[in-house]
C-alpha cells in the first residue's frame, strides 16, 4: 500500500487485550466513517472471558471493519490494515493478513515478558516475521502517556486513554473528522471531567501524530471512494439496536405495550440493555430468575394483553422449549428471539453460528409447529421484529426469530425507514354471539386460524386456557381421540397458513434459471451476496424458514445445483430436502467465524469446473 492511495474499500482490524478498549475504538471509528459517507460492515470478535489474563493470545479482543464505496456487505476477508496493540494481538491476527498488508504495532508492548506470553521466542519485529508486510511501529503507550501527562492521572488511568490516541491516528489516516468522537467522549464522560479532557487530548494527539515528524515510519493517508448509496437518512446500527427498535415499533403498530422478559446470556443481552432505553414507548423489561421464568413471564404478559417477548441464545432457548409448547396450545402470541452462538451445550458463547435451525423448526415435544423467521443483516432485525410480532398476533402463536451473535454486535449503515410504510398490526375480533365465552375465545379466523386475543379483565368473556388438549370448538379440556387429530391438523394448518400472508420468495440477483443457485439464510447474507456478485451466479436468501415461501420450490427447481453455505452442519439443507424433496449441496463452516467471500467464490468455481 502506497501513500495517498485512492481505494474503493479497505479492511481494517484493530486487535489488543480485552481491557484495551478495542470494541469502543472500533465502534467509534465506524460512526465517524459513516458520517464521512462511507458504507461499512463490522465484526467485533472478542473472547468469552471478561478480562482474560493480560497479554495472552486467548485474551485478544478484535474489531474488524470494512469500509468504502458500497455495497459493503461483510467485514471483509483479509485485513489490509492491522493495528496490533500487543504481541499476542499480532500473533493471532497475522495469519489472516495477505502479504503487503499494513501492520501498525505498539512498540511499547513488545517487552520480553509480553513476547513470551504470546509464544514468540524472538521478536517478530526483528526476526523477519514481518518482512512481507509494511510495518509502522509507534510508541503508542508512551506517546499517549506523554500527551495526557498534565492531567495528573495515575499510570493505569492515563494508559486507558491509549485507544483514543490510536483512534486519532486512524482518523488521520482516513482523513476523518474528530468531531463526532469528541462529542461522544464529552457525553459519555460528562461526569468525569478529567478523564473526559484526557481522552479528548489523547485523540487529538494521535491525530497530530499522523501529521508530524514524530513518525517512525511513513503512515499512509488513504482516500476512500464515497459510497454509492440510495438517497435517504442513514444511521449506524447493530442488530441488537435494530431488534430493540423493531420490537418497540411493533408495539406502536399494534397499539399495545411490549413486555420483554429475559435472562442474561451472551450474545443476547444487548437486546435487553437496548430495550431499557425505550421505556417511554410503552416497553417494559423484566429480568427473570432463569430462562424458563423469562418465557413463562412473557407468556403471562401476553395472556394479560401485552406483547410478550423473550430472547436468548441456543442453550437458553433449549430451556424455554416446554413453555413454547404451552403458548402453542394456549394459542397466545409470543415472540422468541434466538441470538445463535456456537454449540453444542455452552459451546462458543462469543462466536457466531447458525446451528439452532433444527431446534427452532423441529425441537419441541409433540407435533408443535411454530413459525420461524430469520434476520439477514443488522438493519433487517428491525423489520423482522415487526414481521414476527405481526404473525404472532395474527395467528395467535409463538414465533421464533433467528438472529446470531454476529448480527447482535455488528454495525452497518442503515437507511432509516419511513414508518408510514408499515401496515398497522390488527388483532382478531371477538365474535359477537350468544355462544359461551369459552367457545367465543376459541373461534378462529378462517384464513389465519388465529383466535381472538381475550384477556383477563374483559367482562363476560371468562374462560380457561392451558396446556392440556382442548376441544376444537368449545375450548374445554378434551381427551377425545378424533378431537386430538383435528387439533393437531389445525395447528399444522395454522403454521402453514402463515405462507398465505407473506411475500413470495425473490431472487436477490443473478439469472432466473441456470446451473447454480446459492441459497442462504441469516447473517451469511453478506459474504454470499459478494461471492455471487463476483461469480455471476444466482442468489436466493430466505427470511421465512417455517413455513417456506410458497414459490420457493418452483424457483429452486429452475437450477441444476443448489449450493447452501451455512454456519452449521447442513441444517437448512435438511429442511429443504424435507419440505421440498430437493437435492442440495451443503457447504458448511463451523469455525465460529463468518464465511469469507473467497471461500464461497472458490466453492462456486469448483462446482463450475466439476461441471465442465
Amino acid at each position, binding site marked *: 500500500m502506497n501513500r495517498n492511495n485512492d481505494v474503493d474499500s479497505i479492511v481494517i482490524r484493530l486487535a489488543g487485550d480485552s481491557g484495551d478498549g478495542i470494541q469502543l475504538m472500533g465502534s467509534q471509528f465506524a460512526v465517524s466513517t459513516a458520517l464521512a459517507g462511507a458504507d461499512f460492515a463490522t465484526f467485533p470478535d472478542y473472547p468469552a472471558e471478561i478480562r482474560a489474563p493480560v497479554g495472552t493470545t486467548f485474551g485478544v479482543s478484535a474489531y474488524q471493519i470494512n469500509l468504502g464505496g458500497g455495497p459493503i456487505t461483510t467485514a471483509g476477508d483479509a485485513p489490509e490494515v492491522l493495528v496490533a496493540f500487543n504481541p499476542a494481538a499480532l500473533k493471532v491476527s497475522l495469519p489472516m493478513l495477505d502479504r503487503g498488508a499494513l501492520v501498525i504495532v505498539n512498540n511499547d508492548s513488545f517487552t520480553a515478558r509480553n513476547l513470551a506470553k504470546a509464544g514468540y521466542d524472538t521478536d517478530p519485529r526483528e526476526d523477519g516475521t514481518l518482512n512481507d508486510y509494511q510495518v509502522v511501529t509507534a510508541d503508542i503507550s508512551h506517546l499517549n502517556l506523554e500527551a495526557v501527562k498534565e492531567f495528573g492521572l495515575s499510570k493505569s488511568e492515563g494508559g486507558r486513554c491509549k485507544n483514543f490516541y490510536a483512534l486519532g491516528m486512524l482518523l488521520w489516516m482516513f482523513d476523518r473528522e474528530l468531531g463526532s468522537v469528541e462529542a461522544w467522549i464529552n457525553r459519555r464522560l460528562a461526569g468525569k471531567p478529567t478523564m473526559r479532557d484526557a481522552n479528548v487530548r489523547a485523540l487529538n494527539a494521535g491525530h497530530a501524530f499522523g501529521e508530524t515528524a514524530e513518525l517512525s515510519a511513513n503512515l499512509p493517508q488513504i482516500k476512500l471512494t464515497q459510497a454509492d448509496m440510495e438517497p435517504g437518512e442513514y444511521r449506524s446500527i447493530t442488530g441488537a439496536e435494530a431488534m430493540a427498535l423493531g420490537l418497540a415499533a411493533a408495539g406502536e403498530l399494534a397499539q399495545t405495550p411490549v413486555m420483554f422478559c429475559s435472562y442474561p446470556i451472551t450474545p443476547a443481552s444487548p437486546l435487553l440493555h437496548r430495550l431499557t432505553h425505550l421505556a417511554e414507548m410503552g416497553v417494559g423489561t423484566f429480568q427473570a430468575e432463569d430462562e424458563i421464568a423469562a418465557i413463562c413471564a412473557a407468556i403471562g404478559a401476553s395472556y394479560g394483553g401485552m406483547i410478550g417477548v423473550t430472547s436468548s441464545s441456543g442453550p437458553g432457548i433449549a430451556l424455554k422449549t416446554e413453555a413454547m409448547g404451552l403458548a402453542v396450545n394456549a394459542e397466545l402470541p409470543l415472540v422468541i428471539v434466538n441470538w445463535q452462538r456456537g454449540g453444542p451445550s455452552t459451546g462458543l458463547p462469543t462466536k457466531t453460528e447458525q446451528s439452532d435451525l433444527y431446534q427452532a423448526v423441529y425441537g419441541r415435544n409433540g407435533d408443535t409447529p411454530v413459525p420461524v423467521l430469520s434476520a439477514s443483516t443488522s438493519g433487517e432485525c428491525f423489520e423482522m421484529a415487526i414481521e414476527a410480532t405481526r404473525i404472532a398476533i395474527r395467528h395467535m402463536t409463538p414465533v421464533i426469530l433467528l438472529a446470531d451473535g454476529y448480527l447482535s454486535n455488528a454495525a452497518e449503515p442503515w437507511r*432509516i425507514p419511513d414508518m408510514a410504510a408499515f401496515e398497522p398490526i390488527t388483532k382478531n375480533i371477538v365474535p359477537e354471539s350468544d355462544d359461551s365465552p369459552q367457545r367465543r375465545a376459541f373461534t378462529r379466523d378462517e384464513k389465519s386460524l388465529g383466535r381472538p386475543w381475550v384477556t*383477563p379483565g374483559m367482562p363476560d368473556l371468562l*374462560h380457561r386456557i392451558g396446556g392440556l388438549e382442548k376441544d376444537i370448538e368449545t375450548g374445554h379440556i378434551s381427551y377425545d381421540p378424533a378431537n386430538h387429530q383435528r387439533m393437531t391438523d389445525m395447528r399444522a394448518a395454522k403454521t402453514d397458513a402463515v405462507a398465505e400472508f407473506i411475500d413470495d420468495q425473490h431472487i436477490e440477483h443473478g439469472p432466473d434459471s441456470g446451473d447454480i443457485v446459492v441459497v442462504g439464510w441469516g447473517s451469511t447474507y453478506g459474504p454470499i451476496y459478494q461471492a455471487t456478485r463476483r461469480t455471476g451466479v444466482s442468489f436466493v436468501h430466505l427470511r421465512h424458514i417455517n413455513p417456506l415461501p410458497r414459490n420457493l420450490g418452483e424457483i429452486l427447481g429452475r437450477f441444476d445445483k443448489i449450493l447452501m453455505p451455512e454456519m452449521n452442519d447442513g441444517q437448512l439443507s435438511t429442511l429443504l430436502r424435507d419440505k421440498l424433496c430437493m437435492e442440495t449441496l451443503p457447504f458448511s463452516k463451523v469455525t465460529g467465524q463468518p464465511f469469507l467471500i473467497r471461500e464461497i467464490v472458490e466453492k462456486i468455481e469448483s462446482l463450475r469446473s466439476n461441471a465442465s
Partner: protein
Amino acid sequence: MSDKLMPKDFATSQEVRWCPGCGDYAILKAVQKALADVGADPANTAFVSGIGCAARFPYYIETYGFHTIHGRAPAVATGLKLANPELDVWVVTGDGDGLSIGGNHLMHTLRRNVGLKVLLFNNEIYGLTKGQYSPTSRIGTTSPSSPRGSVDAPVSPGQFVMGCGAHFFARGVDTDKVGMSDVLRQAHAFTGTAFIEIFQNCIVYNEDVFANFTERKTAPNTQLHLRHGEPMLFGENNDKGLRFNQETWSLEVMDAIEAPDDVLVHDEGNAIVARLLIDLHLPVAMGVIYRQPAVSFEDGFYAHHPSRMERKKSITDFIQGPSSWTVD
C-alpha cells in the same frame, strides 16, 4: 357488580374430577366462599396453576384461569400481574409443583413480593403421578419410588418462605372452614405475595398424614390459632399457652391459667417468633403467622418505569439514534 355474588356463582360448569373425599373439594368451597365474601369481580380475577392435582383448580372456578406447566405458575402469574396490576391473581400449587420442580420461581416470587396470592396445597406426596414421595415427605416415607422408605429430609414450607424474604405467611387446614375463610380473606387484602400453606389430605396416597393435629375432636389441643395482638392460647378452655424459654431459645407450652402474664402475645410482624412458630409440632400454628407489608413488585416496577408503561413517545423519536446523516 350490582348483585352480590354467592359462592355458587364462582363454580364452573365443569365436572370436578378429584378423588371422592379429597381435601381439594373443601378448599375449593372455601375459596369460592371467600371470593363471594370479599366481593371479588370474576372478570378481574385470574387463577394460575402449574401441574398436579391442585393445578386442576382453575377449571372449577368461574373466573379467568390458566392451567400452565409444571412448576411455572408463579412465573406466568408474575408476567400477568405486570401486564395488568389491577387483576386479582391467585396461584394454586402443591408441594411438588411449588417446592420441587418450581422451587426456584417460588423463591423469586417471594423475594420480589409480587402481588399474588399463593395457595400451596401440602399433602406431602405426589398425587397425580400416583403416589411418589415429595419434597415435604418425612424421612422414611414408603412410596412406589421409595419402597424402602425415603432418605431425604423434607423442606419446611414455612421456613423456605421466610428464608426467601416473604412478607405474608399463613396456614390453614383443608376442612377447617372458619380458619380457611379467615386466612383467605386476609391474604386477599394483602399487597404483595400472600403465601398460604394448606394442609391437604390426600385420601388415596397419604391418608391421615396430618391426623395427629387435624382431627376435629382433638384439634383444640393440637392447633394454635393465631391472632395479631392476642395471647397465644389454645386448649379446650384456652387453658394452655405458649411462652418463650430464654434458656433454650424456644417456645414451650405452659399452663395459661396459672401464669396468664407469661403467655406470649402474637406480633405478626416479628420474623424471629414466626420462625419459632413454624417449627412447633404440637400445637401446630395456624392463621397468619407472619405479615410485614412492603412495596409490591408491580408497584415498584410501575413507579420506576419512566412512563408507567404508557406510550409517551413514538418510534420516530428514537429511530435516528445518537447521530444520523443524509445521502442525497
